[in-house]
């Protein structure tokens, strides 16, 4: 997946990814794949911020760094605000031209603890692309539930039990929350479709102003599936309607990825994952029906078939 990009005239072309190999991510990590795709699409004239989480931990254990680009991690909830500060600084110093600024965070760092700073960054109109790598729980701390954990998923703080089917709240609609700020571009993408993800990054970076990209990144450890299945799982999420691939421009739905010919039942997505195993025991049918309804609602809402 090496990307050939030129840093400066006269220098040899760079053939390594900006998020280089040798870091400590788990085998099959969807977030590592997602971050590499995003940065290589963006290219070397990019400054990145990163929220606390797996991505930061596996890529920067002192004295090593996997980032071949200017990169900063500050705290869990301020990746967007730090990026806003960088953008303001570059503007004030007359150095903003031609520089991409990408803020990164996980689902918890974006949709839960970081949503205040994110909203502020979007509302103020900073020329920043925010990328949320959504693996649907607090994976770095041991798979606890977040606001983007899907309905009925079993996590370490939303366990299934005698009187519970797991997470009893629906996944927050982060994309539409961001789109509702009236920003020029808000889209979902997935590591299941890398070319689509890369082209959305490139498209977003051509637009001036705040952009938001919500990337679905399966996690073999937290979702409990074999590590070679990350891309398959990501694709099935799309094909069931559980993770719609859509684009908003100025809060208007402009494009969707149709699943008319590829549509799959939600069981195809749920069954291979240990976090949904409890739904396939006695009494689980009613819960499966609720999840079918969630998929159906997405399909109707975004006209996916």
């Amino acid at each position: 997946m090496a990307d050939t990009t030129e840093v400066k005239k006269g220098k040899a072309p760079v053939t390594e990814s900006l998020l280089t190999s040798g870091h400590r991510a788990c085998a099959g990590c969807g977030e590592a794949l997602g971050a590499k795709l995003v940065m290589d699409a963006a290219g070397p004239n990019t400054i990145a911020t990163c929220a606390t989480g797996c991505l930061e931990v596996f890529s920067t254990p002192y004295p090593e760094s996997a980032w071949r680009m200017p990169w900063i991690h500050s705290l869990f909830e301020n990746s967007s605000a730090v990026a806003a500060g960088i953008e303001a600084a570059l503007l004030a110093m007359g150095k903003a031209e031609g520089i991409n600024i990408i803020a990164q965070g996980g689902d918890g760092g974006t949709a839960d603890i970081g949503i205040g700073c994110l909203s502020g960054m979007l509302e103020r109109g900073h020329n920043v692309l925010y990328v949320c790598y959504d693996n649907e729980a607090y994976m770095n701390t041991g798979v606890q539930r977040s606001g983007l954990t899907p309905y009925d998923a079993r996590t370490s703080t939303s366990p299934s039990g005698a009187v519970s089917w797991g997470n009893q709240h629906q996944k927050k609609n982060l994309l539409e929350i961001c789109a509702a700020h009236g920003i020029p571009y808000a889209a979902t993408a997935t590591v299941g479709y890398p070319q689509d993800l890369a082209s959305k990054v490139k498209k977003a970076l051509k637009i001036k102003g705040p952009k938001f990209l919500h990337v679905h990144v399966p996690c073999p450890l937290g979702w409990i599936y074999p590590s070679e299945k990350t891309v398959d799982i990501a694709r099935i999420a799309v094909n069931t309607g559980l993770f719609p691939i859509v684009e908003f421009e100025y809060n208007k739905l402009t494009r969707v990825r149709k699943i008319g010919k590829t549509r799959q039942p939600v069981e195809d997505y749920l069954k291979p994952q240990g976090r949904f195993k409890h739904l396939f025991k006695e009494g689980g049918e009613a819960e499966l029906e609720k999840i079918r309804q969630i998929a159906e609602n997405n399909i109707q809402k975004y006209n996916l078939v």
Partner: protein
Amino acid sequence: MKKLIEGSMAVAEMVKLCRPHVIAAYPITPQTHIVENLSQFVADGEMNAQFLNVESEFGAASVVLGASAAGARAYSTTTAQGLLLMAEVLFNISGLRLPVVITCANRAISAPINIWNDHSDAMVVRDAGWVMLFAEDNQESADMHPQAFKIGEDSNILLPVMINMDGFILTHAFEPVDIPDQADVDAYLPPYKPVQFLDINNPMTFGVLAEPQWYAETRYKIAETLEDVKPVIEKAADDFKAKFGRYYGGLIDTYRMDDAERVFVAMGSIIGTLKETVDDLRAKGEKVGILKIRSYRPFPKEKILEVSGHVKEMMVLEKAFSYGSGGMLQEELRACFYGAKNQPKISGFVLGLGGRDVPPSTLKKIYEHSRGKVISNEFVDLRQDVAQQGSPFAMKF
């Protein structure tokens, strides 16, 4: 040129002269006039800065963190609840070694909610790895800003600086303040030359994970730098004096202390009231003086010992308290003299909490009744009728 202006306006004027690239702030009383004035300067085109109205103090501190990491000069201001909301970021800014400057318009902390002055807010973050300076009046508050940037941006220091000025007492008081010319401030405070910053031509990783074999050294370096910064603070004050002719002390300042047997120790605007009180007492033949703590972090232990060899009694006045322990300034003063040849009697008084007025009469009362004694953690001028109630702030309608 001297102008009769509000303290907040004086600070805003001086911040403008420091030419920060980025200002981010969230409004909170009594800091508001500072940011209102700065936003007006930007709106009028008098200031070439990015002014960001952010969604919280947490966001404000994070924005200036990012701006500073990108190599810009960055400024914010807050108080009380806002400072507490910033707390997580404040530690991060010093850990990342970013020379941000923040003005804290010192105010009490809720509950019960109270918007008036004390030092409870700043004391909460005294261990955040910041240089913390306390100003006595509006001229000093204003003049501390170019000094603060100069101290923090020193390539041997690279630490953030917090300027503390008493809320309302200073921020809202009108005093004649000399606002210098831009050229003179430019000569005193050259543009910031960052050593390491986010740069596409020289990519670096900031904010790494430090495992147990690395973390302690990063903390040690902050501790070491907060010692190294002591002469830098003094030099910034001396250079300022050479350029502008004004001086308020370096790490400390003293007033009529040369032959003083008894000394008041305090920080902030109470120094003004103390000077008047000491003059009165001196007129009656009392050998009394004032030790002003100008730099609370780093704590000027050596300087205090240097000027206190002849002192018999110290009366520490402080506008904050460490619940379950004692007055922080009282404890630090006492620790300062541990093992010293001369060990004065050190008494501690807690006063001025939540904006309670501290008139000279109160200070004279303290002076009289502590004579020859060691008094600890005395809350001054308490209303006994209220203090004796079981739970004075849960009320029935």
